[in-house]
């Protein structure tokens, strides 16, 4: 298995089928179509070649032919690639750009300050965008020929990225293969920024590019943030610890919750309803079982924390919808929170659904009478 294939590059790349490619029109043979059908953008070329079952040379010949008729896209490319402009390795060669109009009088707009342009080995990763701009739109032709202070390559780069804005492929936007690692991404982003950051054209006449530049830079900057996971979108990073552990022994969450629950019960007995509630709440967070929830709810009621009481009682009632005492607890919590009609609703339903007639029924009945009395006031 060769590491590289002429005209395509590394066999570690993940190729995709060009969305615009029509195998019927291109009159590919069954073998070719089969190979084409193996290419899904997720397997490396090497794996594809190995899994076709064809002799390696034959498989390579087919892939090379598919590539030459525009059926395959390299990572970072979009439809209609120009096969001549394909880099042969992860460090791409500069692209030969057909010049439609003479470049401006500054072939080296920016060179390192005070010195002749120098290339630095480690920084050679130049983003690959298809600067040939196949089938240019009228707007693009106008942009390429308007009078401004950008040179041809700069214009083409910006227009090429504009084309990619709709694709939602951050790798393509940055012009890197999907195999690019963090360092490659950074280098590509930095190299690209030097071409498309508005500051690089400070005080220049930019024509229609004045609006394009920020758009293009913002899109690449966002793509970079997405790929490196530095999205400024707020993540839930807060991990509040619930209580300190007595020792450093590993402990199952259930055991830990049980321990919290026991400590909470002790506090409740000692009359510290508030402290107990906090521990019950902690236990419930670790292990939301019915017993804990109900105890937490009644403790919250005792501690005059109706909102917490409602929260726990609701959860308890969800776990045991036909348990009248859960319903009663929820009604009491609603009542404490001032939600009388909710309390009434829960009690009425509990009464109606309850079959046996016992002490609990009479307590529910009393509660309901009290809630209705309050409601009528």
């Amino acid at each position, binding site marked *: 298995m060769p590491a590289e294939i002429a005209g395509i590059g590394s066999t570690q790349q993940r190729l995709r089928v060009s969305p615009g490619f029509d195998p019927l029109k291109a009159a590919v043979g069954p073998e070719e179509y089969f190979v084409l059908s193996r290419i899904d953008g997720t397997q490396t070329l090497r794996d594809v070649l190995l899994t076709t079952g064809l002799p390696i040379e034959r498989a390579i010949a087919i892939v090379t032919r598919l590539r030459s008729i525009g059926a395959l896209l390299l990572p970072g490319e979009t439809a209609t690639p120009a096969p001549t402009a394909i880099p042969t390795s992860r460090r791409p060669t500069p692209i030969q750009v057909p010049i439609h109009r003479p470049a401006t009088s*500054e072939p080296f*707009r*920016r*060179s*390192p*300050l*005070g*010195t002749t342009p120098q290339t*630095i080995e*480690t*920084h050679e990763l130049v983003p690959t965008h298809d600067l040939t701009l196949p089938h240019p739109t009228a707007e693009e032709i106008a942009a390429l020929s308007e009078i401004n202070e950008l040179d041809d390559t700069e214009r083409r780069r910006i227009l090429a990225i504009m084309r990619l804005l709709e694709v939602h492929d951050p790798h393509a936007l940055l012009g890197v293969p999907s195999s690019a690692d963090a360092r490659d991404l*950074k*280098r590509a982003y*930095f*190299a690209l*920024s*030097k071409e498309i*950051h*508005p*500051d*690089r054209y*400070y*005080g220049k006449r930019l024509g229609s590019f004045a609006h394009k530049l*920020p758009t293009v*830079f*913002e899109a690449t*900057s966002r793509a970079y*943030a997405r790929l490196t996971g*530095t999205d*400024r*979108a*707020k993540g839930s990073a807060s991990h509040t610890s619930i209580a300190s552990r007595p020792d450093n022994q590993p402990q199952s969450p259930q055991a830990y919750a049980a321990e919290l629950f026991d400590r909470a019960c002790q506090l409740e007995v000692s009359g510290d309803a508030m402290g107990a509630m906090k521990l019950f709440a902690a236990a419930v967070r670790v292990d939301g079982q019915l017993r804990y929830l109900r105890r937490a709810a009644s403790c919250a009621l005792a501690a005059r924390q109706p909102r917490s009481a409602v929260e726990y009682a*609701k959860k308890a*009632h*969800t776990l045991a*919808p*036909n348990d009248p005492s859960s*319903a009663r607890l929820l009604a009491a919590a609603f009542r404490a929170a001032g939600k009388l009609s*909710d309390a*009434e*609703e*829960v009690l*009425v*339903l*509990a*009464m*109606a*659904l*309850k*079959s046996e007639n016992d002490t609990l029924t009479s307590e529910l*009945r009393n509660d309901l009478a009290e809630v209705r009395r309050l409601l009528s006031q």
Partner: protein
Amino acid sequence: MASDKVIGIDLGTTNSCVAIVEDGTPSVIPNRGGYKTTPSMVAIAENGKRLVGHIAKRQAITNAENTVYAAKRLIGRKWGSAAVRSSLEIMPYRIVEGPHDDVRIMLRDQVFSVPEVSAYILQEMKLISEEYLGEEVPKAVVTVPAYFNDGQRQATKDAGRIAGLDVIRIINEPTAAALAYGFGRNIERKVAVYDLGGGTFDISILEIGNGVFEVISTAGDTFLGGEDFDRRIIDWLVFGFEKQHGIDLRKDKMALQRLKDVAEKAKCELSSVKETEINLPFIISTGRNEALHLQTMLSRDKLEELTSDLIDRTVEICARTLEEAEIQKSAIEDVILVGGMTRMPRVQSAVAEFFGLEPCKGVHPDEVVALGAAIQGAALTDEKSDILLLDVTPHSLGIMIVGGYFHKLIEQNTTVPTSEQHVFTTVKDNQTSVKILVLQGESDRAEENELLGEFVLTGLRRAPRGEVEVEVMFHISADGIVSVKARDLETGLEQSITVTATSGLTEDEIKKMVEANKDYMVEVRSGQEFEKARHMAEKALEEIESLFPQVTDIIAGSDFGQDAVKKARAVVDRTRTSIAAKDLTTLTEATEALNRTLNMFRGVVSKTRG
């Protein structure tokens, strides 16, 4: 002839510095006295003449009331702010309230705005460079602490305009320092800039590579700097003197100024020696024709003891900044020290200890910021420059929504230029206008953030609340200019503002506006959540309807059977109504009751079957 060159100015709290890039080499421009830094001091002499820099400093003792120092602590601040209140106590010059809740300084019966005072310093820096270059220099890049808000930045820009300078860019001091550090070196690494200056502390993390300087994170404390260290020494001296003589030296402005000078001097000396003598003869009169002297020894150990909490605070901020940026301490490959305070050995060792590496010694802490500003000036205007700074917005930006909350559209530390949009809806029936309050800050409460500007979008269709959608778009340009646009998605009507300067509104005024503008409020579009909630509700409705006949049969006989059916029916209706009203809040409540009822229905049915 006007030069096309751009100077870089570090407008510091205590000292300022100017630099320029010539033939690809950045260098500091010395002033007439040959010094590379100039005191940020302005005074009005007895004859009404304006004195700036070293001259102002030299007469500061005898003319304390008419000499302004540390004006940077006041620039862009509101009269009611804590910084101004604390300055009122310690500054020997008179600080008075301005007409726009701003701060004015009174010198010899003349009132100056703070930008004016800063302008005199900028003008001095401009003159220094013009004498050196032999031509007029109209453009400058000026640095500010990373934590300066938009108001303070704008006030600094205004100062430039007053000084006859076109401030083409404001950049952050630590960023400038990193530019100077990385300039001309082919490096690729992640660095931290620890900047402890005269009045502020900043920490920034940057990624450098191929001439690109990407700011990853920046944070700081605008109330922490060398002046605080000085004040600790002053407090210690005042306390000792009071114990000995029973006289409070703070009451005497002249004595206070001398204490200030000697404290600063002792602090600097203790960076190189272990102990220094403080000697202030004739510091004050006893009132009985007799003068007292202040003479004592201050050791480095004592200074470190007096200021250890200040240093600890800077380290805490470093830790928090790294944590928020999700950067491991070990990923930092170099630490750059900026600001005169970093000469203090204890500061250096604290930094080295925290980052686990020796700070870079290659940069000059007093000059590096100005050099960086000049480098950015060249990067913007010099064809040959190969430097690009990817800067970030130091504070989050957003608008006020219903309830007085702050809805962020652009998070802090986002690379600029950037834009963001979000759809909001009306909160009242027949609401025909929305007011967009553009705010900057990190608090969830609108009134705790800085108000940048406001505008009203009118002509909305009369409709039930939540139906009219307004899209709000934020844009920050590469030079930090914020523009905000609001668009009625139905009619396409638009309103926009470019935030240029801050209005002098106080928190109270914003609070009042919250009240007064309730009719204007918008809320975050909850469409997606609503759709999800509706889907859930409809599924539950379907099931409960199918159970209704069965349950009715079962419970009809019980005491509360009819009652319960009625209640359940009411819950179902309530859910339907809130779906129709597209009201997420009531739907959430109704769905909860619905699910509760459904759960009980299910139980009844299964019990009977079983």
